[in-house]
């Protein structure tokens, strides 16, 4: 079972060591991508439900007047058509007109009938259709006309026999002027091969004028028109911004970008995981090599020199030298242990950090005659602890311990380690002579160093002391680095490479003592 345990431990390389924020970011992006269309759909339909739909072609309710008004035919133009008339014929009639600038339209009333039917466009927008030559239809376009150029386009068709279009469009302006458009020869006939003709703003050279049809059989008919239909006033079509084409295009572009970004991120995460795994394999290999090559050789040399020392006569001078060689080798091995600790990817956890710092404190303080008490929260997790953070915290805590040992005259030092939210809290408390933080801030550069170290990696350092009442230094640090979301793209590889670079170097105990 123990062998099994070792194997399991050996293989249990952390399978994902990437920064937590990237996964978090991906999750957020997906949530936004999924939620946005839904949000728009909901707001859109809610809006549609609460506001009455603008009157569009489909929803027009028409009113047939029971009595034909007496002036139904008054002021109408002439019947116009193209120069020839035949059965099953289409005829495109086009007319532009201007509403003077600074004028306000008070009334714009159009009466129209076509033999046999028509589709009517104003400024390219289809307004209405009609297929009953027996009736005259009246439209109220007051709200649709703004100052400037407008185009009326009527796509008329003839079923059989006589054909023609008859209309009058009377626009009354606020200052009393009247723009009156009647069906006459100023209308143009648009050839059939012109595309999007109803949207064209200018007439073109090939278009010839409409022909007045005289006499049109209906004009003289006594019982014509048989019906008079009044269509309710047209409302300007208000298109909310999210229904405009541009917005849809923009939204699609944004979604596509998001989608692409997600794919890119996905591959990067996969790549990153692979890279991280390779890196950890490499670190494990280096750790093994250091241990197997240097470690065992140096250990052999230590023993060799100890045995040699023993075999020399008691008084020999070389004996002393051998002893120094052994001690030097032991120191080298001790330093190597630290390097191995930093290089070995299996030691990247909070748990190992805690072990290390406790042992360091005890070993450092024992020769100084200071009792080192520990208060470690039980069951420290085997969570990953980012190397730059770990290193900064280690150096800062070492510095605090060194300060206490050198300057405080303390007899006891309490090292307290607690988990806090998603971070770690380390408190170094001594019972020494203390100091006044306000007065001695200049002298104690160590405190500035510690605070700076913690700030650099997003942690905090608080020093509290009073003369005669000891000193308490509290460090708190997150377990993983926090990045601002905006800068992550550019800093991604940069910081990772930097971070891993430092992992290769040994934690330098000298740094803590400066």
């Amino acid at each position, binding site marked *: *079972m*123990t062998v099994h345990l070792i194997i399991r431990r050996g293989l249990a390389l952390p399978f994902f060591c990437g920064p937590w924020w990237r996964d978090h970011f991906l999750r957020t992006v997906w949530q936004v991508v999924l939620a946005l269309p839904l949000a728009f759909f909901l707001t859109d339909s809610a809006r549609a439900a609460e506001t009455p739909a603008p009157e569009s072609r489909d929803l027009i309710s028409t009113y047939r007047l029971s009595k034909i008004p007496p002036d139904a035919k008054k002021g109408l133009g002439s019947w116009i058509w193209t120069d020839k008339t035949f059965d099953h014929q289409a005829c495109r009639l086009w007319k532009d007109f201007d509403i003077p600038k600074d004028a306000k339209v008070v009334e714009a009333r159009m009466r129209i009938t076509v033999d046999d039917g028509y589709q009517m466009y104003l400024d390219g927008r289809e307004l209405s259709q009609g297929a009953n030559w027996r009736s005259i239809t009246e439209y109220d376009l007051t709200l649709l006309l703004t100052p400037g150029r407008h185009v009326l386009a009527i796509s008329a068709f003839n079923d059989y026999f006589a054909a023609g279009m008859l209309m009058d469009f009377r626009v009354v302006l606020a200052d009393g002027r009247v723009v009156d458009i009647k069906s006459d020869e100023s209308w143009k006939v648009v050839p059939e091969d012109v595309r999007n003709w109803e949207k064209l703003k200018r007439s073109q050279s090939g278009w010839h004028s409409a022909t007045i049809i005289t006499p049109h059989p209906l004009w003289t008919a006594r019982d014509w028109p048989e019906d008079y239909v009044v269509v309710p006033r047209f409302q300007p079509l208000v298109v909310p911004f999210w229904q405009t084409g541009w917005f849809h295009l923009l939204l699609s572009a944004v979604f596509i970008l998001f989608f692409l970004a997600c794919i890119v991120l996905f591959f990067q995460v996969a790549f990153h995981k692979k890279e991280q795994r390779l890196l950890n394999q490499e670190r494990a290999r280096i750790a093994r090599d250091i241990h197997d090559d240097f470690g065992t050789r140096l250990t052999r040399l230590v023993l060799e020199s*100890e045995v040699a020392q023993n075999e020399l006569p008691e008084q020999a001078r070389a004996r002393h030298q051998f002893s120094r060689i052994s001690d030097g080798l032991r120191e080298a091995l001790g330093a190597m242990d630290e390097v191995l600790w930093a290089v070995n990817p299996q030691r990247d956890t909070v748990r190992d950090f805690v072990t290390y710092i*406790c042992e360091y404190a005890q070993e450092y303080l024992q020769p100084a005659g200071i009792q080192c*008490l520990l*208060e470690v929260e039980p069951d420290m997790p085997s969570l990953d602890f980012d190397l730059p953070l770990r290193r900064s915290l280690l150096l800062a805590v070492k510095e605090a311990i060194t300060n206490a040992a050198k300057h405080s005259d303390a007899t006891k030092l309490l*090292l307290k380690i607690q988990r806090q939210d998603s971070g770690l809290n380390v408190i170094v408390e001594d019972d020494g002579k203390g100091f006044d933080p306000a007065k001695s801030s200049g002298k104690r550069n160590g405190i500035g160093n510690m605070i700076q170290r913690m700030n650099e990696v997003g942690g905090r350092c608080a020093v509290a002391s009073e003369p005669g009442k000891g000193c308490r230094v509290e460090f708190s640090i997150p377990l993983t680095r926090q990045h601002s979301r905006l800068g992550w793209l550019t800093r991604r590889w940069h910081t990772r490479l930097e971070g891993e670079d430092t992992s290769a170097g040994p934690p330098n105990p000298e740094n803590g003592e400066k």
Partner: protein
Amino acid sequence: MKPHKTGITAKPATQKVKIAIVEDQPEVRENWSKLINSFPDFECVCACISGEEALREIPKYRPSVVLMDIFLPRMSGIECTAQLKELLPETQIIILTAMNDKELIFLALQAGAAGYLLKRTKPADLRSALLDVLSGGSPMSSEIARRVVESFHRKAKTIDKSLNLSAREEEILVLLSKGYSNKAIADQLKLSVETIYSYLKRVYEKMRVHSRTEAVIRYLSTHGKV
């Protein structure tokens, strides 16, 4: 392992303490046996190059202490410790390690080792460590003490109550894990340092039994018969 003074005096030269070594590297093995033989009261009776050989050879000599390398080819030092402890329950096993790695050391202690030594330990410290385990003392670092308490708390629910830590044992372990020295604990609890050691020895033994499910099953079955 920190050396400490014990009341035990060296045994007469006529009856040397028997030590066995399990170490795969010939230079290290030879030098260790030379160092041990250089002590007047110890004698290296058996030097094995592998765990398999150790299980075959060491029981013949019945040494008091076995120095066991943690990294051995094929059978690891930890596995060998566990099996050897079954064969020779009275023999104390000290793990030798080149690297100060607490994870592995904790596993070794669970397998039944009485302590550990870094291979680069000074001969004087080696001697006092040997004397320590012979006198029944098993010093324990605060880190290991903390691990032991944690591991017992985790396993407490599943295993027979009599295998749990006693209140006194836990008290000692908690004080150790807080960084108090054996002496300080002895003063605080009004016990002798030797008594503390014997408590710790019992803790090591419980830990060994705890860590081995086979051992637990065996314990439960024999317990059932009685």
